[in-house]
């Protein structure tokens, strides 16, 4: 999905890296030094213990994103860089703590159900809702929750994987 966002595009880049200390710092340092703008960055291990996968969402035009990918490729600890913007499944997990009382709780839970999200904690004055999905769905849900008062919000950042048989492999 190539969202148009204030004249700029968003790209999802998948980066396989050596699972070693300092690699995240190298990637972060590269983005800072080259003045690239990261919207989100997630990192975790893969099917192989010694390889981690980063999903980086970058704001910029095509030329910038090409530079990002080429510069990433130059890092010795980077094994593979792929643009997974097109034709991919993208997911993000978000925890939202919403203000809730006996009057609003029912409505919130109903909305949560419609979005196939889950209530994972309840207190007298609040609820924690866990929601996963693509960006549009999550943004829509967050907007709906604003009327009740969002007390706290934590997003994991996006992970992405291309559909079909295509594989990002080391």
């Amino acid at each position, binding site marked *: 999905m190539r969202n148009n966002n204030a004249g700029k595009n968003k790209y999802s880049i998948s980066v396989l*890296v050596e699972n070693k200390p300092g690699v995240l710092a190298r990637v972060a340092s590269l983005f800072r030094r080259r003045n690239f703008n990261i919207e989100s960055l997630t990192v975790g291990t893969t099917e192989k213990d010694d390889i981690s996968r980063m999903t980086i969402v970058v704001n910029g035009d095509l030329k910038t994103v090409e530079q990002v990918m080429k510069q990433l490729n130059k890092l*010795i600890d980077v094994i593979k860089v792929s643009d997974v913007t097109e034709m991919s499944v993208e997911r993000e997990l978000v925890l939202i703590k919403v203000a809730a009382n006996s009057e609003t709780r029912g409505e919130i839970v109903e909305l949560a159900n419609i979005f196939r999200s889950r209530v994972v904690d309840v207190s007298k004055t609040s609820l924690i809702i866990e929601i996963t999905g693509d960006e549009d769905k999550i943004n829509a849900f967050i907007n709906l929750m604003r009327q009740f008062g969002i007390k706290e919000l934590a997003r994991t950042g996006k992970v992405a994987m291309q559909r079909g048989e295509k594989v990002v492999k080391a």
Partner: protein
Amino acid sequence: MRGADAIVKAFEEEGVKHIFGIPGGAIIEVYDALYDSQITHILMRHEQAAVHAADGYARASGETGVAFATSGPGATNTVTGISTAYMDSSPIVVITGQVPRTLIGNDAFQEADITGITMPVTKHNYLITDPSSLLTTIREAFHIAPTGRPGPVLIDIPKDITAADIEYNYPKRIDLRGYKPKTKGHPKQIKRAAELIMKAERPIIMAGGGVILSNASAELVKLAETIPAHVVTTLMGKGSIPETHPLCLGFVGMHGSKYANYALTECDLVIAIGTRFSDRTTGKVESFAPYAKVIHIDIDAAEIGKNVRVDVPIVGDARGILKELTKIIEYKQRKEWSDRIEKWRKKYPLKYKKDGKLRPQYIIEKIYEIEPDTIVTTEVGQNQMWAAQFFKTKYPRQFISSGGLGTMGFGFPAAIGAQMAFPERNVVDIAGDGSFLMNIQELATCVDFKIPVKIVIMNNQFLGMVRQWQELFYNERYSATCLRCKEMRFEKIAEGFGGIGMVVERPSEVEEALKEAFEIRDVPVVIDFRVERLENVYPMVPAGAGLNQIIDREV
């Protein structure tokens, strides 16, 4: 085997013959091991100079240069040297001592996070945390530094690892899955390039430092003669084609000749080889070669399209690509274009006033006349530009200069490195009085190791290039550029260190002084040329202007 001994043995296996460095607490074990080694260690007087010397050694010889420093201040002093090597893609390996592993992160005495500090200015760096990875890491460093697009690699080694007992098992081969430089150019792209060349009416070759790094000078000359096309070089590309070759137009950019800049602006095809299109070379990017298609050959894919739009990119090693390209093109005379260029060359020669005053350009012409084979290093500023304009470089690796970072204080230690690589040759550092002061302490190194480097100071008692900008663009407001050291005696300073010093004030004395200096083979020689103070570097493309807006002056 002790870690330190393993390190030194590994260096011997890598063929290292010279190391430039300064010992200290955290690296003392390694120096202890070095005591028994055949490797020559040059004790420098500042770590920055040690890295510049390793860099100069690498640039002159093509071999990977090596520098040692201790932890903390020793390590942080290397940063300018490393950045200089990084910007100019020079292969060096820097070893820094680190505090013992148990103290890392505790703000221990002489602790500095040098891997963190140098991350943006190294091709790669390592902090060894496990003794078992020590030797593999050294092998990797010597693999990474000179291959692909060369660059500096730093290894930070905690003291306890240098003292630890390890098994010596030096890997012959290593496999880095994240590092596979592409060397062979794509045949289809080479074919497309050949088609563009055959179609072009006004081709120009633009040769950068990559041609020298790839040892592709013979191939460059062959390509130029086959097309045929004139060649402009970047500052880093000086020497990639002999500047006496009839097709060579010398260097291009901010202080390149008018004819080189005009040719590059008016051409209809740029064949760029091993250059990153730096701002000092292209001038205003929007008006760079406005009528031209661009072929860009570079081993670093990230350089393609970074600064200038490219029509045919070819990623790979210049040497092989130029060979392939030359095979499939045919000679095609383009007389009109060639005549135009030669007309510019005649009409706008590099020139300076000949009025009996001592001018730097004259001194550099004399150096060339007397010792055309000398290796030349430069400092940065006016001295560097005059050297680039008036010293006709004959062979690759003859002209050594800090192009990208523009490091004042580079030339002298780099000359030491070059002299260690080629003890029989003459090595001249063309310096300014400001730059020379930035690493003047290395006179002690030269005296200590009998390194007969010649330092030729264009002494105008100014930070001359900045003064020139102030004169031209800041209403002659000479803020902090006058060095006010007319009374300072460089020849006495040289003598104080145990070297030889001379002062020259008149053009008639230049030749004799230079000849005398070139005869001296055992100590450094400083010649203080008291030059015309307000001499400027011309022609000049003002910062932010296009190459065709180059200004000159009447002489």
